[in-house]
Structure formats: C-alpha cells, structure tokens
C-alpha cells in the first residue's frame, strides 16, 4: 500500500461554507480500502457533516484503533491531527486527548472487532465516563484485514463467506451504549447517506458521549447470502424509527412540515434537531423504552435505525471532574507549579 496524494487544485466556483472552506478542504488521502466498501461512504458522510457544519478542520482530532475502519481517518479531514492507536484502545487514547484539551471535537472511529471484541471494555468505560466525543463504529460483523473471521457483532446463525455458521451470540453495541449511559445513541447504514450525515452532524453538536453504530457491509468478506450485515439484508430488514432532516447551529429554525409529524429536539449547546418521526410510538428521550424497542425488533430480525436516544441535559467528563474552563494543555507554568514558598510550608509540615 502506498500513500496517494490528491491534487490540491480545485474549481474556483466550488461552493464554500461559512468559514470559506470548500468540500475538498475536508477530504483526506485517497482511500486504499476495497472498491465499494461501506466505510468509504461513512468517510464521505463525515466530510459532508463537517463541511456543512462549517467546522474548522484543524479543530477536530480523529482517533482510531486498528482494522479497516480504523484506517479510514487517513481518508478524511486531512488538515486534522489523527491518531491511529493500538487495537481496541482508541477509547482510552481519546479520553486522554479530551482531558488535555476540551476545546477540540473528538471523533473516534472504530470497528466491530476493535470495539466489540478486543476493545469491548474500553468502549463501555469511555461511554460510561461521559467523554465528550463522537464514537462511530463501522460495523460489518467481520475481520476484513485478516480476511474474513467473525467478529463479536456477527449474529448467531449467520454464515461466513466460506460457509461457516457463527454459533456465538452477537453483541449489540447500541444496546450496550444505552445501558452504560451514552447520552446520544443512533444507528444507521452506510448505504443510507441521507440518514447518516444528519446523525453525524447531530452527534458532533452533542456535548457528551455520542455513539453511532453504522452497519457497513464488507464487500470482500461479508456481503453474501447468509450474512446479516450485507447490503441486501440490511435494506430488507431496516426499520427506521425517524429521520433527522437537518440540524441547525444557532440559526433560526424554519420548519414547514405537517403539524405533528416533526419533533424539535433542543440540544444542550443551543442547537436544534428536527426529527421527522416514522414510528409514532417512538420517544427518543425514553432510554428504557428504547432498550425494549430494540430488543423487540431484534427478535423479529429487524435492524432498527435512526436517532434512538438523546438525553436532553447531558453532562460530560469535564463536568464530572470539575476541570477549569481553559484547556489543561494551555495552562502556563505559574498555574501549574506551586513554587518554593508552598514547598517550604509542605516541608515544615513533615518534621
């Protein structure tokens, strides 16, 4: 594999966002994933979301673990610092990064092997701490880079490309995220950009642990009949509970839907989500109901997608730790080092 640089020039009339950046400013290197890989669609949605939100690209830190999904941060936001850490441990590295500088946007990209198998513990613990982040799992139920072994999100009874049937039960990361206290939980499908991009935008605006499980079929090893993570299977079994039409920043909201069909969800930072409900029974603020709804539909073989839960008043780790408003990495010597007078007093107390 080689590093491929994209040409820097672009058409002068390309649309610019509020900061004057064009779409190309949010792109990264050319992807080296397989042609048609669902992960590349997710990268495209991340680029789209950051462009539309007019985020300064360098104010995002993108972190990942190891695996196909974890390679993707190279392919988007080329002007952001990135960190491809070790397998299954992105959540801890992201937690540390977030502690050091609370002012950046943290985008954690992981896969099902990375988050549900080797990194299951770190996944759960970062979420239960309420780290302010967008945690995206690009979920294909299979190990791609090592050529097709089952991962922990593969459904029991699903068949590998070689015909092996998985007998282990699947881990539903959405269920776990809800249980351990994620304040924003969504599921989407890499083949459904119109659903995914607004969800990523909403997650970025969310101040707390935001988790998005994105079913992302592996075209090389998990897109065959008998797989429950193939394009065809997910399209047939997708049960979308709602659709986010747009998310506004701090601009006035204009809604022209039929009364009753749209729910406006205020986020903590002042932004608003316009949620078009597809299932009238579904309440995005009811965590317990969401968990039972998921279980109920999973039993019927349905994959529930959409914004599944959002806490109206989320708190993040910095609030729990009562840290100062300034990023810790900007504190100067005099704010950190108590000096010799304090030390003399300390010495005196030990005699």
């Amino acid at each position, binding site marked *: 594999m080689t590093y491929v640089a994209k040409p820097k020039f672009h058409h002068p009339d390309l649309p610019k966002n509020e900061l004057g950046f064009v779409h190309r400013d949010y792109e990264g290197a050319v992807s080296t994933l397989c042609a048609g890989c669902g992960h590349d669609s997710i990268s495209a949605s991340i680029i789209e979301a950051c462009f539309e939100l007019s985020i300064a690209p*360098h104010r995002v830190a993108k972190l990942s673990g190891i695996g196909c999904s974890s390679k993707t941060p190279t392919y988007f936001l080329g002007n952001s610092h990135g960190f491809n850490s070790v397998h299954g441990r992105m959540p801890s590295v992201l937690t540390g*990064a977030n502690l050091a500088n609370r002012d950046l946007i943290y985008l954690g990209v992981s896969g099902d092997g990375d988050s549900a198998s080797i990194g299951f*513990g770190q996944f759960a613990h970062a979420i239960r701490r309420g780290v302010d982040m967008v945690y995206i799992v690009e979920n294909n139920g299979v190990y791609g880079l090592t050529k097709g072994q089952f991962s922990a999100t593969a459904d029991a009874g699903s068949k590998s490309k070689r015909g092996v049937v998985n007998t282990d039960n699947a881990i539903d990361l959405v269920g776990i995220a809800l249980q351990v206290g994620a304040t924003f939980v969504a599921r989407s499908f890499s083949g459904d950009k119109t659903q995914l991009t607004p969800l990523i935008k909403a997650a970025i605006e969310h101040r707390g642990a935001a988790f998005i499980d994105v079913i992302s079929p592996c075209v090389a090893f998990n897109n065959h009949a008998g797989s429950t993570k193939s394009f065809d299977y997910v399209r047939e079994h997708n049960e979308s509970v709602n659709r986010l039409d747009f998310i506004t920043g701090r601009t006035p909201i204009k809604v022209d839907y039929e009364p009753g069909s749209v729910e406006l969800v205020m986020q903590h930072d002042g932004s608003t989500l316009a949620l078009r409900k597809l299932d009238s029974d579904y309440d995005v603020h009811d965590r317990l109901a969401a968990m039972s709804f998921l279980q109920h539909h999973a039993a019927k073989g349905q994959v529930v997608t959409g914004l599944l839960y959002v806490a109206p008043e989320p708190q993040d780790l910095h609030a729990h730790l009562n840290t100062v408003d300034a990023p810790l990495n900007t504190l100067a010597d005099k704010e950190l080092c108590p000096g*010799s007078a304090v030390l003399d007093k300390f010495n005196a107390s030990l005699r």
Partner: protein
Amino acid sequence: MPIQSVNDFVVRFANVNGSGSASANELFARSVLRMGIPVAPRNIFPSNIQGLPTWYEVRISEAGHLGARGGTDLMIAMNPQTWDKDVAGIEPGGYLLYDSTKPMVKSKFRDDITVIGVPLTAICNREYSDPRQRQLFKNIVYVGALSALLDMDVGEMEKLIGEQYKGKEKLFDANKHALHLGRDWVMMNLDHPIGLRLKRADAVGDRIFIEGNSAAALGAVYGGATVCAWYPITPSSSLAEAFTRHCQRMRVDPATKKNKFAIIQAEDELASIGIVIGAAWNGSRAFTATSGPGISLMQEFLGLAYFAEIPAVIFDVQRAGPSTGMPTRTQQTDIISCAYASHGDTKHVLLFPEDPAEAFEFGAAAFDLADRLQTPIFVMLDLDIGMNHRLARPLIWDDTRKLDRGKVMSAAALEAGKEFGRYLDVDGDGIPYRTYPGTHPTKGSFFTRGTSRDRYARYTEEGPAYADNMQRLLRKFETAKDLVPRPLQANADKPTKYGVIYFGSTSPAMDEAIDLLEADGHALDRLRVRAFPFHSSVTSFIGEHDFVFVVEQNRDAQLRSLVVNECNIDPVRLVPILHYDGTPITARFIARAIADRLDALKVTPLRKVVS
C-alpha cells in the same frame, strides 16, 4: 549480657493486621525523631486487610544509617501467631516486651534475652469497657510502656498526640491518658530504663519525614502534570492518591474552585497508559503510577509511545514478581521489562531515585525529559522507598526554573513557513519537532501511527524509510545519555582495583556497608547509577577497576545485564551481589557478600603459602 546501647538499636513491633497498631507504632517512630534521633521505619505487611501478621520495624541510628540493618534488639510481641518466630529473631542479649496478662510457659522464652512482661490486656480491661477501645488503646499503652523503658521524652509524645488530634480534645485526652497508663505501670512495677536508651540528640537537622510515593506525586505536581490515569495496585496506589491530595491543596483555582488537573481511576492499566498517551499527544503532561504487573499489561502501548514518540511518564513502584509474586514485598525487579518494554526494537529511559528527595526531584524532571525526548520516561521506585516514611533532605524548588516543553512548533512558526516534518531530524540530535493538535488551520497537522512512516509522517512500508527512522530513534537515545541524571561517584581514600555499582533504594544500606567494609580494611570505589541509558562515566568507571560489584535487589542481576549489553562489558568483570527475598537489602548482607568475594579474589602468593 543484655545489650547496652544509646540511640543505636532496632525495635520491631509484631502485630495483627487491622488491630489499629499502625498509628501507635508511627507515634513511637515520630517521637524518637522529635528527640533529634534519626529513625528509619519499615512496614512489613501482608496482602490482607485484617487478621494476618504485620510487623513495623524501627531502626534507630544517631549515626544516621537509614537502611535496614537486620536483626531485632527489642521485640514488642503482640501477635501470638508469630510468637515463636518473633522470639527467635531477637539478637542475643536483646529484649522482649510482651503482654503478661496470661501466664506463659517458660519454654516459650529464651534464656539469653531480657523478658519484660506488662499486663497490657489487664490494664485495658480494667480501664475500658468497650471492646474496640480495649483493643485500640492497648497499642498506645505499650507505646507508653516503651517511653519509660527507653527513657523517652514523654513531652514530645504528648505534643505529637496533640498535633494528631488538633481540635479533637476528647480524643487527645483519651490517647494521652492511655499513654500514661502504660508509662505509669512500668514506672511503678519495673526496673527502668533498660539497656537500650534514647537520649536527646541533634542529628535530624532540617530533614523531613516522608514516603517516597507522596514525594514522587508532589514532583508530578511541580513538574506540571495535569492528567493522571491509574489503576489500583500495591505498592503504587498511594502515589496516585497522594497526587490527588496534593492537587486538591495546590491546584484548585481559588476564584472558580475548579480543578487544574484531571485524575481518572481507569478500568485497567491498559486504559491508564492509553489515557496518558492520548493526553500527552495532545500537549498535556500526563502520568500513570503502577507496579510490575501493570508494566506487563502496558507493553503494547509502550511500544506505540516509543515509536510514535509520545511523552509519557510512568512511575513504577516495584514489588516482587513474577505474576502476583509478593505484592507487599520490595524488589528492584522491573529493570529489564521497563528498559526494553514492548515488542520490536525498543529502549526506554529509566530514572532511579534513591529516596523521597530524589523521588520528588526525578518525579518533576521526568516530565521535562519526556517532553524534551518525546518518549516514555520511567521513574523506578520500589516498595521500600515508596511506602515507608523515610528521613530525607527537604524538598527544594528553584522559582526561576521553567518547564521545558521540548521541541513544539507554534502556529506562528508554521505561519512563517518553517518546514515541518514530524519525524524530521533538523538538529542532528534525533529529536524532531511536534505540533499539538489544533495548532494551525492548514499547516502542521500529521497522522500519528504505530505503523512505519516517512520523515513527514506519511505512511510507508519502504525498508529504507523504516530503517532511517529506527536509526534516528537510536540517535535520540544517545542524546538522552547526557540529559538524564548523571551517576554519582565516590572514591575510597586509597587507590583500589575494586568498585561497586548500585542504584535506587539500595543506597543507605550501601553507604553503611562501605563503612563496615572499610573497617575491615577493604577499599571500594562507588558509583551510584541514577538513570538509563548509561552515561559514558559508567563505562569508564568499570574500565578503571579490575572487578566491579553490581548490587541489586532481584534474582537475575538485571541492571548488570543492562550494563553488559549496553556498554559492551565482559560479564566476568561484573560480580553480581543479589538480594531478592522481598525484605529490603541490608548493610550486613552487602558487606558480608562483598567481603566473601573479595577474600576469594585475593590470591595469596605461592611462596607465602609454602613458608
């Protein structure tokens, strides 16, 4: 003949874990200190909260010997479980203080020691009705008895109790009363003082009494650490807990009451080091505190930090391994596993503080070194210095000192068009520039990865680019040799062919051993190694001597292996002196082991033997 000694003996308390003896025993040690006499206390405790045997040993030495000595001159035997072993451990001519409430058969004692019976249980039962009080005050009562037996300054003891229970009059009165119950009983019923006595001296000076873990944690505060992630493990937990305490006192913004620090008790050691690496990558000074098993768990991440060049500080408070080993016993046993931590070709910087004062100094310096060298720095403490109170010189800080953040490229430099290559060696010292995330909108971003890359942080699997990077990392390690604390050399009065290398907590025992060896006519030059990679003076020191003893507290002579390997020394010239039973190394052990080998090395001329 009973031992006669003033201000130079060892007192050992044998207690049951969880019986409340710790604070009473500490009161005894501090009282001696307040009389101007140096003490070195050591906790010998099991991995248990309640019920198992525990010992507290107080070495009293006006001469200032702070290493463990070995042997007990006065045993306070409060634990029936360990009675036989405790009595057997008393030096001939020594003393035994025991609770004489119940009669003991004569065979339970020894003829060559002085037995002192004080009916502690009876005194307490007479005085208190609450069983918990009977138990707790028994400890203070025996300290009171000791005050009379050893001729201690009871005023200093009362003062200490007063400081401990400041604002709690009732507790102060109760403890003072218990102290006098024991003291008065001895004064009325026994010959006192005994042959061991304490006499006011002036040998403590301005030294402070502090645990190494607390001092190291304070070093982290002064060194500017803002992020701490840790997982509880003996004997390092008290380091993270001390950091929490120090920060609450020194790092809370007075106006907003908000914290200028973030401390996470992580789910395991993997997450701890991951959080440290993430924070350090993002420009905060960060550390973890752990022990051997934690170091084992962190191996993969440490390789990443080495290769991706992330500053990280690891305090390793060593204990006896492998596996769970002896979790509450001391050793210097993680030298190799830290020096070469992780898979692939790695080498790490290690610092070896000898006591709390250096734990503070190196604790702070570690953060400058980590930022300067952009690599993990290990501060190698052990249980002996970490968890015991030790008399140490006062901690000092130079207010003109600036934190050295190393080579960090600013937004202004990037804007001015300065060339930035994350792994580009611009100064020839192997250390490249880095940028903090979020520095500049279009310049200076890079992708950090554990896979190989070129000088501009671009992914590559090309052999020459990989080798080029690995060579630069070696150059950086060379640079480190002159940045880390230098070894300290002390030569014998007369020229000698023999030298000794030692490090860390062995220090006080080594100093004392030299006195013992010199008294026997042996001359030895000393080199105290304070860091790895080794400074060139280590090689020259070995070159100047025929044989060099390497004293360490592990089975496999780990530092010696490191010297052989890194300085290309013929192993024959490095004679290992190894102590690894989990007890702190003693001067007696070192002196005996070295003297034996010196005698063996001395070849007597043939003619002399014949005649």
